[in-house]
């Protein structure tokens, strides 16, 4: 083999159905705001895509503090989906992001089907400026007594279906690791027209202050993220990938480039960097570099060769 070949930059581009990204490194919703802050640390247009904080139709204040609590190898958050509302994104942030030439995955959520549909309608007007919409289905469905959308597979199918009727750009369904039936839900999401699955959202957890006997979070329960959940997330991704339903954006506890590679070998086509952004503000760039070097060293020319490779070795 000539030196030339082994040193040519590997092809990092990937497809998530109709979604084409220049590389597999994506940021996780809620851990990167809309990315603008991070552009002070590195050029965020180098990322495969930036997933925004989940937007609701109108501004939401979110949960009462405390909203954070550190745990062993992880953290609990109970932000309560605080956000400035979709109009703020469209009017204030999108112009800046367009200028930066960022590939944007817009995360949205609603309290009920109606809110999802109303947001979809607003987003339709900017659909050429974003690469996909990620539907955060781990949020509580007020119509159904607050149970997470993604725990009701049939409901997910019809919801995605109706969003698609309004909004013709690729849809990503983001699922929670807290439900047994995530594989069924993923299948229904595909039936409803989703292009890809994001897995996992945070794991339900809590912590208690033993001096005052109260939960450490204002909201009592919170979502666990970070390296602590990596083995759990990786197992879920592998279980879903085995079923070959839709391409997967794997996430949950990625802190080193090696973790990202593990997710891809387990079957994820792209990876989401979440909590790590808080600790290493230039993480996106570093993880990308790590993956690229790994491919070079292993003499692998495109990511397709490692995505889901665990199943060949099983």
């Amino acid at each position, binding site marked *: 083999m000539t030196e030339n070949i082994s040193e040519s930059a590997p092809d990092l581009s990937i497809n998530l159905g109709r979604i084409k990204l220049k590389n597999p490194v994506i940021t996780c919703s809620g*851990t990167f705001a809309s990315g603008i802050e991070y552009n002070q640390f590195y050029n965020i247009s180098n990322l495969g895509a930036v997933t925004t904080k989940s937007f609701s139709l109108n501004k939401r204040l979110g949960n*009462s503090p405390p*909203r954070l609590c550190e745990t062993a190898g992880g953290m609990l958050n109970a932000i309560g989906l605080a956000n400035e509302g979709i109009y703020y994104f469209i009017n204030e942030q999108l112009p800046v992001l367009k200028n930066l030439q960022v590939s944007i995955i817009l995360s949205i959520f609603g309290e009920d089907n109606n809110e999802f549909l109303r947001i979809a309608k607003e987003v339709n007007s900017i659909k050429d400026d974003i690469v996909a919409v990620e539907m955060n289905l781990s949020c509580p469905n007020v119509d159904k007594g607050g149970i997470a959308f993604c725990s009701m597979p049939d409901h997910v199918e019809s919801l995605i279906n109706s969003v698609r009727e309004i909004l013709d750009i690729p849809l990503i369904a983001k699922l929670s690791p807290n439900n047994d039936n995530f594989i069924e839900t993923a299948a229904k999401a595909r039936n409803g027209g989703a292009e890809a699955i994001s897995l996992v959202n945070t794991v339900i957890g809590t912590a208690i202050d033993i001096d005052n006997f109260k939960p450490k979070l204002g909201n009592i329960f919170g979502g666990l993220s970070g390296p602590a959940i990596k083995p759990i997330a990786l197992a879920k991704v592998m279980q879903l990938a085995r079923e070959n339903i839709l391409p997967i954006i794997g996430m949950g506890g990625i802190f080193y480039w090696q973790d990202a590679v593990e997710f891809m070998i387990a079957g994820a086509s792209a990876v989401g960097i979440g*909590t790590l952004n808080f600790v290493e503000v230039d993480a996106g760039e570093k993880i990308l570099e790590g993956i690229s070097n790994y491919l070079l060293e292993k003499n692998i020319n495109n990511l397709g060769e490692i995505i889901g490779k665990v199943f060949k070795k099983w």
Partner: protein
Amino acid sequence: MVLGNLMKILNGEILLNKKYGENLYKMEIFSPYICKNALPGQFVNIKCCYEGMLDPLLRRPFGIYEIDKRFNVFTILYLIKGKGTLFLSKLKKGEILNFIGPLGNAIKIVTGAENYLLVGGGIGVAPLCLIARYLTDLQKNVYFMAGFKDELFFSWENDLIKIVRNYRIFTENGSFGEKGLPTNFIREHIDQYKKFNFICCGPREMLKALQDILQGKNIAAIALMEEMMACGIGVCMGCVIKIKEGNNAFTYKRVCSDGPAFNLMEVIFD
């Protein structure tokens, strides 16, 4: 208000990590960038474990205590509270510290305000020292009042006297300075401070007491707030506190990027 848009990830050599008392340490870090760009009221977010380690997972925020532009050195004053600060206390001269900064907004100096009363409780005195220094440099009239539980901060007085001439130190047990609480003293002598701008930092109870004292008195007061942080740069929405907005309404503001300084009279403690 200066936005923290100069923030960077930085590495700086530790030039000194000195014990000031039982759990109290002062650390000097070499950083031309911080010395050039940081302003009083801002903080840095420090990685408190060796590379490749995940415990503690999150960075820890510390107010900037001193800036010495001659030597490109900035200083933090810190108390050992848990594992992150324990780790810091074990670092030696010559080791490299990883931190993000400068973060948060600089304190806002209203033109025309000439008299400042700085009220610090416990480790809350740390960021006030840099502010005091800045105000005296601006020829303002600065009075520093500090309250502690006991004599832990005894050696810190040597730092203080290099910054301000007018100060009063209280301890709850009387072992250092006057016995009592600064808030009690202020309550009794509030008439003397009508023309002062208050800047305070310390435990919740102290801030609450000051808010009570200043209620309806039309005295400007700024509080430097603390809250658990994940990102420190305003993206996670985790470090919020409740702030009055309009009549009987409230909103949440981020300590890291909307603060850490807030109008004390607008903070809702509940």
